[in-house]
């Protein structure tokens, strides 16, 4: 995280407005106080004592933290850092703490999701949602994930082992998407790497994004202790990756797509069977804007033999999932999801690939509502399925 003060960080905004049309919440509301420029100005004013922090709060609450504004800003404003510091000033609400304590502890999360599946309806009870967001819920309670039956890989066709990498299991990921981890392991093996699972749950990203800086720091320390020194840390969840790349683990951390591309996966993918299917790609904010990882997943997906890769309109605009945003701001999150879904339909794709569990679950929910004509997969799942000849 940035070492600068809030006043210094915010004062670098020259108010040019070049970020406005890249901000999802500005695009749908047209309101200055729901734009990056507006939010920065409110934070600066509050920090200088010219505005009550409480007045700024609702507008910061509505910020997705997607950091599309950072990509757009010619002046190099570090919006992510501003947001984290501002949220720290505001302090997380009790409801947020409750949500996070459940979500980021894998054992608790598993239990909660299992209980959730037994409750009537698919969503959080309305009363609880009112407490968290003041609105009725939109996001379904996630389901505990399972690992699909992958065909056995022909060991003799694999390259010899050339090294070992650590794979971050994560808090949410290992409960919701163990299958993504399995796909990642298989792909790493395909390019000659053995995997060391890092079980220590949580990197603290969700806490950091909610202004719980101390909790975030503690979690990071725990994680570090589990990591063999110097071993590359492979991450397949965009939000975690972007937080880790801003920590002192930044030298070691790599998104799985970066690592796999750099280690020759394209050749492996090309040698697979033909998969005739139309596929599109949604940029997770914390990959595209947070880590600048845009071309690597696309290059891998395009390498699938027979694939028809189509670009999604506004591919790098937030889908509204944004960590726990869709629980805290159900209405805005839903509007963003609808906008995303419209473009998915326009693309005519049968598969949407993306690199983050939040986006994955949220877009998949929409696909389910539409009757499952579209399948939502993690980028690495799609690729491993192609390698195993089971994508189309």
């Amino acid at each position, binding site marked *: 995280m940035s070492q600068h003060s809030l006043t210094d960080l915010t*004062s670098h905004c*020259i108010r*040019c*407005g*070049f970020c406005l*049309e890249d901000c999802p919440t500005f695009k749908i509301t047209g309101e200055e*106080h729901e734009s990056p420029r507006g939010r920065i100005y409110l934070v600066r004013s509050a920090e200088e004592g010219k*505005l009550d922090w409480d007045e700024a709060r609702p507008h910061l609450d509505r910020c997705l933290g997607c950091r599309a504004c950072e990509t757009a800003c*010619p002046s*190099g404003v570090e919006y992510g850092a501003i947001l984290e510091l501002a949220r720290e000033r505001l302090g997380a609400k009790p409801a947020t703490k409750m949500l996070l304590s459940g979500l980021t502890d894998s054992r608790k999360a598993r239990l909660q999701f299992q209980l959730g599946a037994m409750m009537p309806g698919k969503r959080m009870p309305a009363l609880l949602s009112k407490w968290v967001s003041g609105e009725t819920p939109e996001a379904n309670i996630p389901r505990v994930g399972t690992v699909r039956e992958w065909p056995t890989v022909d060991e003799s066709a694999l390259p010899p082992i050339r090294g070992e990498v650590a794979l971050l299991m994560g808090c949410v990921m290992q409960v919701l998407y163990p299958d993504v981890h399995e796909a990642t392991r298989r792909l790493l093996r395909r390019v000659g790497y053995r995997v060391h699972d890092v079980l220590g749950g949580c990197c603290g990203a969700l806490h950091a994004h909610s202004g719980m800086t101390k909790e975030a720091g503690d979690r990071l320390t725990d994680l570090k202790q589990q990591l063999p020194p110097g071993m590359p840390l492979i991450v397949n969840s965009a939000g975690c990756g972007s937080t880790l790349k801003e920590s002192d683990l930044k030298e070691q951390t790599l998104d799985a797509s970066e690592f796999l591309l750099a280690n020759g996966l394209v050749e492996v993918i090309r040698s697979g069977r033909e998969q005739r299917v139309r596929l599109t790609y949604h940029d997770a904010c914390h990959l595209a804007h947070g880590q600048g990882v845009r071309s690597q997943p696309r290059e891998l997906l395009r390498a699938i033999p027979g694939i028809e890769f189509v670009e999604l309109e506004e591919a790098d605009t937030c889908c509204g999932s944004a960590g726990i945003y869709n629980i805290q701001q159900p209405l805005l999150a839903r509007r963003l999801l609808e906008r995303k879904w419209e473009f998915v339909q326009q693309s005519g794709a049968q598969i949407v690939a993306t690199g983050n569990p939040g986006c994955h679950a949220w877009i998949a929910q929409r696909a389910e509502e539409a009757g499952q004509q579209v399948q939502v997969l993690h980028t690495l799942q799609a690729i491993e399925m192609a390698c195993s000849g089971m994508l189309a």
Partner: protein
Amino acid sequence: MLTGDAVRWGAAVDRAYDCDAYTVDRSAPAAVVLPSTEQEVQAVVRWCVASRVPFTPRGAGTGLSGGAMPALGGVVISTKRLNRILEVDLPNQRLHAEAGVTNSALSKAVAHAGLHFAPDPSSQTVSTLGGNIAENSGGPHTLKYGVTAPHILTVRVVSPNGEMQEFGRRVVGGPGPAWERLVVGSEGLLGVVVSAWVHLTPVPKAVQTVLVALPTIRAASDAVASVIASGIVPAALEMMDRNILMALKVAFGLEFPADTAALLLLECDGEPKQVEEDFARMLAILKGFAPLELRVASDEAERKSLWTARKKGIGAMGRLAPTIVTHDGVIPPSTLPDMLEFVYAVAAREGIGVANLFHAGDGNLHPCFYFDDRDPKQVESVVRAGEEIMRKCLELGGSLTGEHGIGVEKVGLMHAMFGPEDMALQRRVKELFNPDTLCNPCKLIPDQKGCVEHMVRWRGVAT
């Protein structure tokens, strides 16, 4: 009549709307209204007139002279939800769009047909059609294609007394003066623009771009003069000084030879054969000025990266200091070296940083001051320096503004440019449309009722 979420107020909202991209003058509105239809705009204006509340139209708020700042408080009418393209008429190369559509969105909507909306202010990805019309925005390609005015066929406005009016005609030619030109550039004083028919221009078939590094400002400005004198009409002819280069290096890692004092960006566009000829001639002329480096874009990607230098140059300045203020004035192109010397001298005397960006082809200069607006002294210096530079522009036979408008920033200087008779006539025109000055008060025309106090206040500190 207005839906619930169309009216916003409260401490945060008022704060957010208290200025546009001209930051040294601020004034908070009492409320912000975001209408979604022209009927809603009309209803708001009528309410304001009946209640004697001042109102100020606002597009994206990227203006650089304070045009969207609610100088006397009251209501800000945002056009951001008037964001539909109403009709596209490709065979006749025109389209009808609402005021809140961004400049880039207009071009995007017709890109498949090989057309675009030619005015290209640097803010084009965010600035709105309504704002471009109000300010008569220009851009780098103004040299060949003109400012916003010649591309506007009709303008539909809600007049300051709440009536729907349409100026202009959808075809070329017709009786009487071109009334739409009265509205274009009137800085929102003659009503709230709600929609317009615009003329579309074919995207040029060929483009050639070159970036040239030169050792002195004199050499750069002589090179500009020679290119213009040769009869070539470049699509763009831009100049940047060494301080801009510093920002570009920090922001985008763009590097130039160490002794560069000025960068020129030149572009030719049109029919392939013509472009090739013109461009070759232009390069020959440029080589005569002993350039330190000459970068020709070999493809579209490289062309884009050369343009980054120009389009994001000002934005990149934010990396050098907390705040920037970009001025805007016009001089006869031949006086450029003298003018620049003057700008440097004024900045040095005031102890503030300045970088310069020019539309060199038409003498439109943009000195950009970088400073810390938390220091009242520096704010004063910047305001004083700006005024001096504007007076120098006039002295050299130029103008107070090329494309940013007068707004509140330069309203006090209007007397220096226009004589009493001229000023009286302008005032009469304004009063004809806007008799009780409720619509966007304190802008463009000096000495308006109730604005004196405001004028005094804004010479102070950004609060």
